[in-house]
């Protein structure tokens, strides 16, 4: 969340995006120390289809780089697809597949990607997901991201405060 306090990040997100938030998990405060909890940032179309995402906390430069990549890729996707939905999905598949190849060396269009899957970092797993199901609706993927990529539980429980007995 600290990256969101950065002025440049704020200016860019406010210019190109309309932002909102949702509580999807919880954590414990044990003697004032946070245990568990995480964050996922989604860059979506207005109707909630995920163009890209950042799983976990990142610094301002990383969040800004991802936001810029989404905005510029969305412009190019619109130009390329010319209103054709299938073409648009193929474009976003290729965009994430290219990121995966550049950053993790994995070729998603190869016959078997399962071998390298366990070696992927968090962001690599996000690109793999979005290459497999480009423009998936956020309600169809958030649980997978939060539970299987970030290792947290989706929960409606409030934050609990625990003070250990001395």
């Amino acid at each position, binding site marked *: *969340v600290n990256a*969101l*306090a*950065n*002025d440049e*990040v*704020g*200016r860019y*997100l*406010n210019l*190109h*995006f*309309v*932002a*909102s*938030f*949702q*509580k*999807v*998990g*919880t*954590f414990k*405060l044990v003697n004032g120390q946070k245990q*568990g*909890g*995480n*964050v*996922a*940032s*989604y*860059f*979506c*179309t*207005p*109707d*909630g289809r995920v*163009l890209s995402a950042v799983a976990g906390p990142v610094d301002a430069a990383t969040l800004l780089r991802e*936001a810029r990549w*989404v*905005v510029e890729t*969305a412009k190019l996707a619109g130009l390329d697809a010319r209103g054709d939905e299938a073409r648009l999905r193929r474009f976003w598949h290729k965009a994430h597949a290219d990121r995966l190849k550049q950053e993790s060396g994995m070729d998603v269009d190869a016959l078997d990607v399962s071998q390298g899957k366990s070696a992927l970092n968090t962001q690599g797993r996000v690109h793999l997901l979005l290459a497999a199901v480009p423009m998936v609706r*956020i309600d169809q993927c*958030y649980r997978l*991201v*939060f539970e299987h990529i970030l290792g*947290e539980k989706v*929960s409606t429980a*409030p*934050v609990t405060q625990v003070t250990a007995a001395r």
Partner: protein
Amino acid sequence: VLASHSAAPAPVCQSQNYGTSVDFLASPAEAGKEAERDRKLMFVLHISGNFEDRQFT
């Protein structure tokens, strides 16, 4: 079409920044509508805890 001069202005979604540099609307549904209207994309933050209370975020 004639519009009444006395008609109340359309409601505007109120945003808050919750200690960040980003303006947040209260729900993704509101954000989606505004993004559609302003031809922007939508940014959705999924968090653990309460975004409104920094102690619980």
